[in-house]
């Protein structure tokens, strides 16, 4: 290739290309985006794998995430410490899962994590209520919220414990053909 870039070693780029759904060019572009979020924190030279994390507040201001009601949960699910501080690895991972080429199963796993507000690996009624309030900006009356959550759990719950495990969630998602087209962010 023509330009010799000095941000990553060739081996690193190969590793990224194999572990994500991005090509080399896209990974370099992602690094540019990551850098402009916090130019003083993020080094331009990643050949020695520096341990740099960008805080949650800076990431949720990205134009791709700014209008998303679940932006905090998305960033928290992909961070290693669960608080939303993303390293470049996590950043690339996040957009790789949310890209158009990620398969349904992978997206379902992460969608489940995102909607699980209390991180107990179940989608209980409180998780659904929080999801619904974020979706409608709290404009539904409490009885309506209650009705909707009850109906949603009733429809998807397979093992009858009135909360959704991952298997229930995945079964419900597999019947929703628009899931792939809505659950994706383009960067």
């Amino acid at each position, binding site marked *: 290739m023509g330009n010799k870039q000095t941000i990553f070693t060739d081996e690193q780029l190969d*590793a990224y*290309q*194999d*572990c*994500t*759904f991005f090509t080399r060019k896209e990974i370099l572009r992602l690094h540019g985006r990551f850098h402009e979020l916090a130019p003083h924190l993020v080094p331009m030279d990643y050949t020695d794998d520096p341990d740099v994390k960008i805080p949650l507040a800076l990431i949720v201001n990205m*134009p791709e995430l*700014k*209008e*998303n*009601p679940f932006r905090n949960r998305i960033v*928290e*699910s992909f961070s*290693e*410490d*669960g608080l939303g501080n993303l390293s470049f*690895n*996590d950043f*690339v*991972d996040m957009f*790789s899962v*949310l890209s158009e080429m990620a*398969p349904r199963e992978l997206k379902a*796993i992460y*969608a489940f994590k995102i*909607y699980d507000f209390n991180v*107990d*690996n179940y989608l209980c009624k409180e998780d659904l209520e929080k*999801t*619904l309030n974020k*979706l*409608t*900006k709290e*404009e*539904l009356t409490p009885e*309506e919220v209650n009705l*909707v959550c009850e*109906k*949603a*759990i009733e*429809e*998807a719950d*397979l*093992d009858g414990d009135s909360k959704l495990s*991952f*298997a229930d*969630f995945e*079964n*419900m998602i*597999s*019947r*929703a*053909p628009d*899931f792939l*087209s*809505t*659950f*994706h*962010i*383009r960067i």
Partner: protein
Amino acid sequence: MEDNQRRVNFQRLSSEDSAISDDSCEYYQTDIYEHLPSTLSRDWNSIQSLKMLPLCMQEKRNIRERLHQQKLKIGHWESWRRSQRIAWRRMVEQLKGFFSRLLPWKHTLHKIEGRFGVGVKAYFVFLRYLLGLNLLNCVIIALSVLLPSLYIKKGGPHCNLTSKDNGSVLDVFLGSGFLERSPVFYSFYKLKNIDKQCLNTSLLFFAGMVLILLLSFLMIVRRTVVGYKHTWMTGNHFSMNMSYKVFCGWDFCIQDPQAAFLKHSFIKNELKMDLEEQRFRLRVSQRTLKQKVVLFFLRLILNISVLALLGGSFALIYYATIKSQNKLDNVHWTLKLLWEYLPPITITVVNFVLPQMFCVIVTFEDYSLTTQLNLTLVRSIFLKLASLGIYLFFLITYLTTSIQNPETEFGKEMYKLTIFHLLACFCNAFLVSFPRAWIVDKYPSSMLAKKIGKPEFVIPLNILDLVYSQTVTWVGVFYCPLLPAISIVKLLVIFYMKMFTVIRCCAPAQRMFRTTSSSVLFNFMLLLGLIMSAVTLGVNINMFVPGTCGPFMGDSSVFNVTSECVQTLPRPVRNGISYITSEAFAFALILAEVIILTSLVSRGGANRKTIERLKDMLVMCSSDKRFLVKQHATLIRRQRRIAPSTE
């Protein structure tokens, strides 16, 4: 301890125990999961599955390192095969990326999707698909019709066209004068022999047209089937699912704050409507017998009135067709233009007014909101295709009995339909939608603005419009061979006009548009349009008395030309063709198709049952797995507790 408990378990989604387990328990759970056969087999697969692991980046890189090290232990042959597979996959991905970049308007459609959602984008994608289809048709016509005719300049029977030499702008709109003598219409092409008896321009003409219809048919069937397979596999229960709306409702592509606000109110309205529908269903189940009888008679009367409206509009179309065929001569050009364009004007007016009346009628029939919308849509579809069909029926009946050059007249009518459709779109965009939006923007609090409101981009009706225009193109292509080229120009203009309308004038829709199930419906409508045009072509070839001009004039009708060609072929080929076109072969073919269809349908039913059973098994197996892992972890924990105490 609390931090560890709150740490998101990136490795797997374990069961209830993770809420009460401590650090060591998680570690042991991790340990056993790594030795499970399913995890191990995943590692052994090629790099492709590495991308699909739900692990964080560092874990994936570790696995990749391990994979590479294992590669060193495998022989050279195996590692070379693996690297070839990786290189091949990367090349395929690059090719796919390259081809997707070739598609035009990618960036524009991306912006539209961000602001208006997936439904509006689906309309423009459909438009782009029709553009590609017409381009293909154009190429086929250029090769099989235009080139032979323009290449052989001399020869062919003499042809007397009875048209005046006006050469005015009016000719462009009416298809008369210089346009009639140009390659645009049927009468330009003559029967010229190129080489042997079989190779003449007329046969190439016919073969080109048949090829167009066949190719279009194959492409659309493939598109319909692909969409239908998807809907069929996922089942049709999703549209009523509250859970689906909650979890898949938000479109993650949205970046515009205005669009986000609209999407929020969208979802809220959807949920409110769903709750309303639940209440409606409750009310329906509580209807008394007397109410049901009254409702039945009311619906009967309303359906009869709908049929009466349809009948009335068909009668209107009939009168317009008959009247417009009596050409006026010594009048002002505007009146002449209006008179000639009477049928297209009638059809467009009918298709504009009647759906509004259907909307009003359906509110009295006491159905749920979704059923109301579907019913209106079905009635509009029927109206659009049937009005075109009725028009063609009366036109062909008239042309068969009265006119000298029926083919060219028919081509001219289709040409006029196409031109008028473009004019109607233009008027709708600039004389109806734009003023409405302008009034609402400039004087938002006035009575007028509140009454009319901003126009809404109703996706199904717009797609129906596209299907109609494509059907007209197919019907007219035999008698107006350059119609696909005109159609391409028209579609390009419509693309930019609709883009202008959507971006500048429209208020976003209040109801979510189900792209997948509706796309099956619209592809099916396109198929219906294609079948209608094929049937019309067959009827035309049979019924029209050949005129004085064209590739199949006088003695050399389509049948004569083809049979002459068949006679010159060698004997075995002639026998083969005569056998294929006989009734016995057709009967055998139909029988074979019925048998294959029955077996496929029964296999489909069996597959569906299997899918349901497998889904149940999957749920059972994963809960078994979680239970066993929990037991294992508890045992290990107990052992570890006992072990230090015995030391």
